[in-house]
């Protein structure tokens, strides 16, 4: 099986989806050996730049894959494999009224991911700005280092409301523990997530086959189940 | 009057034995303690000072009970108003000779008395010296001066002159006696030098292996 081994570096929030996809994949392609390593997209990118033995990189955005492309570390261009959707989450408040909930007086802290690093944060902020809400709440915002940390701020109750990935709100641990409101696509565009094959993957076809597999329609139901938008099929 | 009646288990060259001392010592007198090495002289002084807790017994100084094993009394060394000179000096390494000596005094410093001591004990030129730059005899003299600086009710001197030469020794014996005459503190001096004991002691407490504590009044 050594010839059919692929090492995949994936953004941490893909864990639940990918484990399920991997299980299904191994049924369809018995004998494949997939090793999936989760980490923050930034850390994984630095490790790839410095020679990490990864075949496929599944980022949580499009910025890091294109940086790798710029450095000539990739053998094909990046492709979108799914879209992440932004959700507002709270454990105490009923969010049925939508975005205006952030103006409630009991909301003392609002957790948003650091827009410099996390596209979820950037899109959330842009939405708030567009709706002229940002200035009204900017003093109450706390910045999560990444989308997971933002979720932790919210789940632990230190922030009353958080702007997190829908996939996190649907994670097994968090289901039914609070209320969420999915930001409509027309006011908050979903986040494109791109994957890219890293130089050296060619030693066997497993990484490329897996990449094809995750964007195939066989996986659509899994992506949907975890709250992701589907990549456009060409 | 100092009343001592204690028993304490110690280990000597002859194996473990009970140090048992029962005696009454007069107030304001100069008392010399002597006995063979390892008999328990230092241990006795430390028990009076409150640094070692006897296994059993009573130590009483005038009306004040320092220690009573039956009634569970054990006054802390700080409250016994004593001056104790350690056999191995135990100078504070971070203080100069002068600082060591004046540290012994209470909040109201008697600078004149410190100066007198420094002069009498031949430490003038070493005032600003730290202990690690002193010779054996110089350390001993500093420790002695520090103990005397406090003007305590009871002075406990553990072989204060063992490391000084004979000329200096005679001079310092007289200095100590003079201090005793001036302030009248009850003084217990341990010495293994028979001449010294005979010269200085108004009373002599002889510790011996037969565990009989002989006391001679002069």
């Amino acid at each position: 099986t050594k010839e059919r081994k692929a090492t995949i570096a994936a953004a941490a929030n893909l864990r639940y989806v990918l484990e399920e996809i991997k299980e299904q994949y191994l049924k369809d392609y018995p004998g494949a050996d997939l090793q999936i390593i989760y980490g923050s997209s930034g850390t994984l990118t630095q490790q790839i730049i410095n020679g990490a033995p990864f075949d496929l990189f599944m980022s949580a955005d499009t910025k890091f894959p294109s940086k790798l492309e710029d450095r000539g570390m990739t053998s094909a261009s990046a492709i979108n494999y799914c879209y992440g959707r932004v959700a507002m989450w709270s454990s105490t408040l009923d969010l049925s009224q939508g975005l205006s909930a952030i103006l409630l007086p009991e909301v003392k802290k609002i957790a948003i991911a650091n827009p410099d690093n996390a596209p979820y944060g950037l899109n959330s902020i842009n939405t708030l700005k567009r709706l002229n809400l940002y200035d009204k709440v900017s003093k109450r915002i706390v910045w999560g280092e990444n989308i997971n940390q933002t979720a932790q701020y919210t789940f632990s109750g230190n922030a009353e409301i958080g702007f997190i990935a829908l996939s996190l709100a649907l994670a097994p641990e968090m289901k039914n523990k609070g209320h969420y409101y999915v930001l409509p696509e027309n006011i908050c565009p979903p986040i494109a997530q791109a994957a890219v094959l890293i130089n050296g993957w060619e030693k066997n076809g497993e990484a490329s086959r897996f990449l094809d597999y995750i964007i195939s329609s066989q996986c659509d139901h899994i992506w949907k189940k975890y709250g992701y938008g589907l990549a456009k099929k060409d | 009057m100092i009343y001592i009646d204690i028993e304490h288990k110690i280990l000597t060259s002859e194996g473990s034995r009970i140090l048992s001392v029962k005696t009454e010592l007069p107030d304001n007198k100069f008392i010399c303690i002597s006995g063979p090495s390892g008999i328990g002289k230092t241990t006795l002084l430390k028990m009076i000072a409150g640094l070692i807790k006897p296994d059993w017994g009573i130590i009483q100084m005038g009306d004040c009970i320092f220690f009573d094993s039956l009634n569970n009394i054990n006054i802390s060394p700080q409250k016994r108003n004593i001056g104790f000179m350690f056999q191995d000096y135990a100078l504070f390494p971070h203080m100069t000779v002068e600082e060591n000596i004046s540290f012994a005094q209470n909040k109201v410093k008697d600078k004149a008395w410190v100066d007198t001591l420094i002069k009498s004990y031949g430490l003038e030129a070493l005032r600003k010296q730290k202990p690690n730059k002193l010779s054996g005899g110089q350390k001993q003299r500093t420790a002695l001066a520090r103990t005397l600086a406090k003007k305590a009710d009871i002075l406990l001197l553990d072989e204060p002159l063992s490391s000084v030469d004979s000329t200096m020794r005679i001079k310092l014996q007289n200095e100590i006696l003079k201090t005793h005459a001036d302030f009248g503190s009850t003084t217990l001096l341990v010495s293994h030098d028979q001449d010294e004991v005979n010269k200085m002691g108004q009373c002599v407490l002889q510790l011996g292996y037969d565990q009989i504590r002989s006391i001679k009044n002069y």
Partner: protein
Amino acid sequence: MSEDFINTLWLTGKLATLSTCILLVIGLPVSYLLAYTHFKIKPLVEALICMPLVLPPTVLGYYLLIAFSPQNIWGSFLEKHFNIRLAFTFEGIIIASIIAGLPFMIQSLQTGFSSLPASYREVSYTLGKSKTTTFFKVLLPNIKPSLITGIALTFAHCIGEFGIVLMVGGNIPGETRIASIAIYDQVQALDYKTANQYSFILFLTSFILLTLIYSINKSFKIKTI
């Protein structure tokens, strides 16, 4: 160097200095007790003091976050009675820093105290000095090398510590965004040039400060040992 970074550096300095001072105040009595009293469960207490080192900082930070949360007893108590919410405040990251730095300060001071000969205390007591006077005038000056090691290690660790602080602080500029977080941010964003610049400045400032701290040690040693 941007004004923003100067602010960040200032905040870092403030955090490290304050935490170190508070740790000194906590560490001195605790290490004194640990050095001079003997009780059966002492090795347990000593091991417990090391524990903040054993858990990964971000995980420790996560537990702190839960402890601070208004949904929990302690957090809601603070919120109700004092209107304090520790998460995302400077006070919160000070607490985090103190917990993270505890082992260094206490361990250093404790070895210092326990290597002093008992006679120092005994002499001081027979001279009628109280435990407090003995502590400040006799013991403390004689553990100067350990004191300096403790201060240097704690200070350096507070500067570089970022896992717990990042978790508890929420990266708020001017309030909880310290230099190590700023540098981490830039490395994450692959902005190596700025990250290198900032690291260099942080490195240099700390280096000079620590050299000064250690120089005190040196002059002390030459004088007395």
